[in-house]
């Protein structure tokens, strides 16, 4: 096996790299860039919501169709070009090989191809903003016949239809799925085949488990959507009628295919970030992760349930009302494994010896915000209340309280935690804490009051509420302004992070200080900082689970996975 000594050209080392760490960073950087695009779109339409019709600084006047396109693309970008690359591909690539104690992915070249297909998908998406007619503006759920029947891009010419905003969006999503599938297959094959000696399934860190479960959920659920998207593309470019009721098609078919994927997708995004919490909380509580094995079983249960709840997005869509009870019960049931996982995380803190470091603050902030997001789901899981709340800002606020902590708090927790390992440099902790408090405060400022707007009947995707007497009144319009101001400040707060990132990267490497700064027990901390191509000088051997902190009778409160000694596994049976 080739080890860390060989020299590579800049081109092979940083651009067309097959090194899982470089690919992970490429995915993460691409995710950050796309988050900038998605955030800028959010700024534009949030400004418009607070001050409808006024010229927007750095942009200008926002036309109604642009508004539709921007809310649509904001959702698409944040889910598929920020959440997925950062949480699934970024973390998966960075962490899986090194945490299971191997040199690289099972298929490094496929891995490189995966990133470059993803890169092309992002370019296709960005291109769609500049084609005639503009980017796709039919909502991120792309419900036909609006997205299919020529309502957005009325063009009989095949090539013009193919290069319309709608078709480019479908192509971009399809390419993105191809990239994620390649990555997912790589993760699963690598985890099954390339674990270090002694790294049994139940000695793997939770984040590795969860990245694999997330990849499997993605693979199981994406097939029907790819088929559905192909039909949507045909409806658009060659004029088929799969979703056209006048020609025997059915728009509800798309809703089923979309949500059969769309709901599991939220768990694809959630599980990797929960895995990050599972790595961070034990380290800074100096305590084993509470209920390691039950957490894995709960996640597996949630993976099965995740494909049985999709129609709770369709309670008012015209499905048979008798079906709703089944999906309501499914929704209730799937809240149980996730509640169990969060409770186990909280229980990890009890009786610990807690260090409030920057990654720990992001992890705690994640749990606190997700608590609001998760509990407001209780209202929406009830099909009856959903008759009223569906498509209102109550729903929008609910999912921002789940996805924002998930994607951004999860990501920042991971960055502040693993940055020293993968760069050999340290981030400034004071700036990290400032970044945390600003983000936490302004996120709540952006969203919390909008729960009230939603409960008062404010419906989604409207660029100007002046026609609607229930919303065009106080205090709801003031809440819109507060939300917009906080959203702008929330975006500006991220420059603290960027400043911290760039000034820290400009420092010289300190391999000693960054080798294991948190005194952590998993394998990545035994490699050099930054780990060379190939990760380990000598392949590690694993003797125990990943969270053996504060073992009674030991002087050192961290019993690393690769130190010879007892396994403690006789303690681990429920």
């Amino acid at each position, binding site marked *: 096996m080739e080890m860390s000594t060989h020299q590579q050209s800049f081109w092979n080392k940083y651009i067309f790299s097959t090194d899982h760490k470089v690919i992970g960073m490429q995915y993460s950087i691409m995710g950050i860039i796309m988050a900038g695009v998605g955030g800028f779109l959010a700024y534009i339409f949030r400004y418009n919501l607070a001050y409808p019709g006024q010229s927007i600084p750095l942009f200008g006047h926002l036309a*109604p*169709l642009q508004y*539709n396109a921007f809310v*649509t693309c904001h959702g698409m970008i944040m889910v598929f070009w920020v959440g997925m690359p950062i949480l699934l591909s970024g973390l998966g690539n960075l962490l899986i090989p090194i945490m299971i104690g191997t040199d690289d992915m099972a298929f490094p070249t496929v891995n490189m191809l995966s990133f470059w297909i993803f890169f092309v998908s992002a370019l296709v998406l960005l291109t769609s903003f500049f084609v005639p007619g503009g980017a796709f503006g039919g909502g991120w759920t792309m*419900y036909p*016949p*609006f997205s299919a029947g020529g*309502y957005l891009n009325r063009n009989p010419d095949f090539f013009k239809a193919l290069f319309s905003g709608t078709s480019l969006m479908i192509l971009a999503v399809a390419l993105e799925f191809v990239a994620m599938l390649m990555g997912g297959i790589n993760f699963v094959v690598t985890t099954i085949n390339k674990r270090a000696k002694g790294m049994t399934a139940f000695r793997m860190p939770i984040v590795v488990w969860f990245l694999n479960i997330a990849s499997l959920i993605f693979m199981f659920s994406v097939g029907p959507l790819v088929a559905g998207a192909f039909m949507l593309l045909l409806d658009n470019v060659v004029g088929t009628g799969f979703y056209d009721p*006048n020609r025997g098609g*059915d*728009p509800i078919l798309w809703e089923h295919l979309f949500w059969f994927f769309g709901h599991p997708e939220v768990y694809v995004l959630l599980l990797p970030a929960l895995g990050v919490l599972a790595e961070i909380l034990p380290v800074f*509580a100096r*305590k*084993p*992760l*509470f*209920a390691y*094995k039950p957490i894995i079983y709960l996640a597996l249960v949630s993976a099965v349930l995740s494909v049985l709840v999709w129609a709770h997005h369709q309670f008012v*869509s015209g499905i048979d*009302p008798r079906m*709703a*009870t089944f999906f309501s019960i499914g929704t*209730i049931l799937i809240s*149980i494994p996730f*509640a169990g996982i*969060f*409770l*186990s995380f909280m*229980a*990890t*803190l*009890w*009786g*610990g010896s*807690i260090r*409030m470091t920057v990654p720990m603050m992001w992890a*705690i902030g994640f*749990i*606190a915000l997700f*608590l*609001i997001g998760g*509990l407001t789901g*209780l209202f929406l899981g*009830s*099909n*009856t*209340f959903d*008759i*009223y709340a569906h*498509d209102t800002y109550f729903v929008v606020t609910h999912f921002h309280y789940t996805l924002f902590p998930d994607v951004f708090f999860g990501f920042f927790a991971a960055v502040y935690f693993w940055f020293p390992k993968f760069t050999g440099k340290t981030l400034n902790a004071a700036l990290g804490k400032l970044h945390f408090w600003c983000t936490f405060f302004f996120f709540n400022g952006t969203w919390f009051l909008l729960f009230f707007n939603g409960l*008062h*009947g404010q419906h989604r*995707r*409207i660029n*100007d509420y002046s026609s609607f007497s229930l919303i065009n009144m106080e205090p709801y319009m003031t809440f819109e302004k507060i939300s917009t101001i906080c959203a702008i400040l929330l975006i500006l707060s991220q420059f603290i992070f960027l400043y911290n990132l760039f000034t820290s990267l400009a420092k010289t490497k300190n391999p000693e200080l960054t080798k294991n700064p948190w005194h952590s027990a998993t394998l990545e901390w035994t490699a050099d900082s930054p780990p060379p191509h190939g990760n380990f000088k000598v392949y590690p051997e694993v003797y125990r689970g990943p969270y053996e902190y*504060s073992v009674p009778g030991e002087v050192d*409160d961290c019993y690393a996975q690769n130190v010879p000694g007892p396994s403690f596994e006789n*303690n681990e*049976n*429920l």
Partner: protein
Amino acid sequence: MQIFPENVSTYGQKIDDLFWLTLVFVMIAFVVSLFVLLYPLIKNRQSNSPKAQYVTGNKMKNFKWVLIALIALLGSDFVILYVEHDTWTEIESLPAKADVHVGITARQWNFIFTYPGPDGILGTADDVVIDEMNSSLHVPINKNVVFELRSQDVIHGFFLANTRLKQDAVPGRTIIRWFNITKEGKYDISCTQICGILHSKMRNFVLAESDDKYKHFTDSLYSANSHKTASN
């Protein structure tokens, strides 16, 4: 500040009550969870608690606390489901007695209202169709108004917030729903599915009137249309 817009329907209060009941469970869960999260951050800081306890949580002795919490959550979920189920059935199925039939057809970008004409039956030659932006659907108060919801083009959403009723209008399907408004007034109907450039302007009204006023309105509507061929 009122949380919900004024409820004017027979079933709307049940949805509001469901919200308040759920809120009780949610607030209990929120306060307990927040305590469980924040208490150790104060109590078990490194300065207070230099040595952590070794608890794996894999034994039932410890894990039972999580199970108890999960059972409590599941229990409150099923209480909510039990309470709401009758309301769901009431709203989503037809009332025993339909007093008024109307047709509502969504299109880009307004709702078209079809009155059944003097015979009271939709789909006959004497139907009267009103197709205007910002027009009002006249209905009598305290009557079960049953409507057939359709769409001419794309998916729209029919949302009458003051009755708490929402239903997507799907092309190719006829969906039958009902409401019974108990108070005179003019209420917004808004479209809740993104449907194009004027989605934000897609707003009509329901004008709920006393029986007399409603009869007066339909009489003059039908007599004005009696000499024309119905345009359905």
